[in-house]
Structure formats: C-alpha cells, structure tokens
C-alpha cells in the first residue's frame, strides 16, 4: 500500500507526435469530390452491392474488392445522436474542444453504412432518432471531412 508523507515527483513530457496520414487513392477521390463538387460518394462492394461510407478497398463480410463509386446523400436519416457537454483536450487542435455540440450517425440516402458528423442542433429536445437531415457544406473547402460543416434538420 502507498506510503504517506514523502515528496512524490513527476516528469512532464508534453508530447508532440506529428503524423501525416495518407488518404490513398480511394479517400483522395472522396475528399476531392467534397472539395470540388460538393458531392458525397460511397464505394460499392463488387459482390454484395453494399455501398460503404467511409469508402474502403474491400467489403469486410465478403472479403471482396469494392469497385464502383455511388453518389449518396446529401440528405439522410439521423439514426443516432448525442449532445456533448464535457470539454476535453482535442488531440487534433491541442486545445480543449468547445461545448456543447451535437453529433450523430447519419444513414445517407443510397448508402448502406452511416457517416459520423456534427449536427447544427445542440438541444437534445430538438433532435430525434429517425429525423431527416441534410449536409451543409462550407464555402471554403480543403479536401477534408470538415468540408461538410455539419448536418441540419430538413423541413
């Protein structure tokens, strides 16, 4: 059991591990489409026909290659949501993330899997599983997921 009454020291290591993640061919196509066309694409399995977001080279259940791009969204169904209240250190920015914010999983029209993204609404009473939402694109786009600003309720 721990002793008491002795001075305990610690070493601080503010770590900075810079990484440059390769998007590769498939994801580069996806992000270029967000940036240049304001369009969202899913990738279709050559065997079962499921349309995957995020795009990927192979469908896991079939272990078969995906081989076709399919335009999906920009509207879809909000299948899961939450509003985050606790702030935390965001490793993407190095700062605490501002709260509250809403985010959820959206099944875009024509896609078989969901996409995870922010919601324009941060009052849980105004969000409902099953409501239709639509993508809102930023004016300035860079070829990243944040080219979509968030999803907002339709109607």
């Amino acid at each position: 059991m721990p002793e008491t009454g002795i001075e305990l020291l610690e070493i601080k290591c503010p770590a900075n591990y810079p990484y440059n993640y390769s998007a590769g061919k498939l994801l580069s196509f996806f992000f270029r489409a967000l940036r240049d066309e304001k369009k969202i694409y899913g990738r279709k399995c050559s065997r079962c026909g499921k349309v995957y977001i995020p795009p990927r080279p192979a469908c896991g259940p079939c272990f078969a290659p995906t081989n076709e791009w399919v335009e999906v969204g920009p509207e879809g169904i909000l299948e899961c949501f939450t509003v985050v209240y606790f702030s935390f250190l965001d490793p993407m920015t190095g700062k605490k993330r501002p709260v509250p914010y809403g985010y959820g999983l959206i099944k875009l029209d024509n896609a078989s899997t969901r996409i995870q993204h922010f919601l324009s609404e941060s009052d849980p009473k105004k969000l409902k599983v099953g409501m239709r939402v639509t993508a809102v694109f930023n004016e300035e786009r860079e070829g990243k997921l944040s080219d979509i600003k968030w999803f907002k309720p339709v109607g």
Partner: protein
Amino acid sequence: MSERVAIVGYYQSRCEPEKREDHITDLVYEVTSGLLNKIGMDISEVDNIVSCSQDFLDGRTISNRTIPEVEGAYLKSEAKVAGDGVQAVFYGMMRILSGKYKTCLVVAHAKMSEGAQNVIANAMFDPFFQRALGLDETIAGAMQARVYLERYGISEEKMALAAAKALSQAEKNALVFRGRKTTKEDVLNSRMLASPLHELEVFAPADGACALMLATESVAKKWTSSPVWLKGAGVSMDRYYLGDRDLAEARALTEAASKAYKMADIINPASEIDLVELSDYFSYQLLQYPEALGLCGAGEGASLIESGKADADGEQPVNPSGGVLGGNPLCVSGLNRVIEATKQIRREAGKCQVRKQVKTALAQGSYGPCGQNQCVMILSAI
C-alpha cells in the same frame, strides 16, 4: 505426437520509402487478397489471424483497428503482436498447435512515412533516464556498435564492408528499394548519423506489408505441394537500460537461438543451417549476430564476412534477400525474413536464389533498442 505446422503460402508487396497512393487498408488488402488468390484459399478457410503492427508507428491508438476488414477478421478471431513479424509467426504457430485452429493468416504492415521516426523512436525510452538524452534506435545502435568494435578490436571498415555487401546484394531483390552496387568507401563516405554509424549502415524508414499462411499438417497439402515446416522457435528478452547490458554481446539472441535449436534438434548451427535471414537494422549486427547465433566464434563475425562464406554463393549464405538494410519497414522486416527463407527453401527467390540446396533455414527478428527482444525460427523443407 502433435501435428506439425507449415507455411503454405506467402505474399509480399514492394517496400518503398513512401507509398502515397496507398492507405494502410490498401497496403494490407494487397497482400492478404494476393495471398489467398495465389494459393487458392477462400476467406472462409482462414480460421484466425495474427497481425503485427505498432500503435506508435501508425499514429493510431489501436493499430489493428484500421485493418479488420482487409485482413479477413470480420467476425473472426484476430490478435495483434505488437513487436516483430517473426514473433507473430511463432504466436500463430502456437494457436494452431493448441488444436483450436487449422489455419492462420499472419500479416504485418507499417507505413513509417506517416510519422516522425526519431520522435517516435525516442518514445521507447523511459521518461526518467533515457528519453531526455534524445536517444533513438540509431543512437542506441551506435553505442552498441562502439562497444562491440572495442571489445573485439574490429575496425569500422569491417562494418562498412558488411553494409556494402548487403546493399549490393539487395540490388537483386525487386521488392526492396535501397539496393545498388556499393563499396565500403561509399558507405564510409555517406553521412555520419551517430558515430560510428553512417547513413548507409542504418535501416531506412519504409512503407510496406507482407503476409503468409500457416496450416496444420493434416490440411497443408490442400494448398501447396511444398510446405515449409516450422521446426523450431525461441524468444528471449534482455535488460532494458543500455547501462544494464553488456552491449558487446547479443545475449537475448543467443538465448532465443538456443531454444530454437533445441526444438529443432540442431547441435552445430555453423554446419547444420543452410541459410540465414537475419534482421540487420544496422551494419554491426551483420557481424555480431552470426556470432550470437553460433555460426562462428566470438569476435569472428568480420572474418566470416570477409571469407565469403556468408555470400549468396557461399557455404552458409546470410541475407541473400539484401536483408533489412535493403529496405524494409519495422514489423514487416521480421515477417519478410521468414518469407525470404521460405522462398529459398522452395527455390522461389528469383534473382536472389542461392545455388545450393536449402533444406534448413533460420529467420531472425527483433524489436526494441539494441534488439532487446529477439525471436529465432528454424524452417525446414522436411
């Protein structure tokens, strides 16, 4: 007695300094789907998977969370060995010997181009005593090289010669990127990274992946007419602090080898092993490791190389593939050694194929500063 375990197929992708077109999932899918297609195995016949990769290299807190679909692990059993590829083969072997599985896909990947390698390597050193010194693998290796050279009175030129031969041999290997005709002067004239190690004596970060298939004896012939049997395996671990170790010796490697030899009934490795593929992250390991493996006496590694015995057309070829110095990333490097040894036994090594018949081969891998954790496997044609 239990059934033996064999390698029934393999697939390698070309290692390059940066594979920008590939996402990690592309790298892995290329070798897993390539392997299954090559041996005619359906994904349903893969009973379980052992992968090898590192969170810090991938910049992802669970490095095998990127790849479940492309390694065939959808609703299947997979485990990740966070060390070196040779250990992953050993673990896969155990999983089959347990009786629970008949086949095991072993896959390794690394995309070192995505991270700042010195910073990553520095994170291996404890925050209290070694990290603040700015140590990375190269600096630690340089210290070990210095101690080894001093202990046995070996000149730096001899290390450089070993590197030159390795890089020249690597030119024959289409799957690695650092091969070219190299002299010991070329090596000595390359940039000094950390005395006494020059740039051409130190492994280069790389992107790549490779995979192999293990199968138990009763089903192995379904996929290949030339299974390569896993006859022996051994792992051992050294102390951690560089100051705790006698760096002139590769103690953990000697221990690991002795376990593998015992399992494979090898008494005189210098004459009973036909070919060796060892993980040479640094030039001095080409001298020190054969000694630790018992291929020659202490301090005789340099003479072994000078004699030509370890050349591709020598009596006991060492690294006819060009080795890790030829251009292999971490994790993948060890698995590639097992695959290259397999190719030699099956006479499928192309331009790197040695002329002599290879019945028994040794593959070695390690991870950690100065090879703290070592794994040795003995492969056999019969």
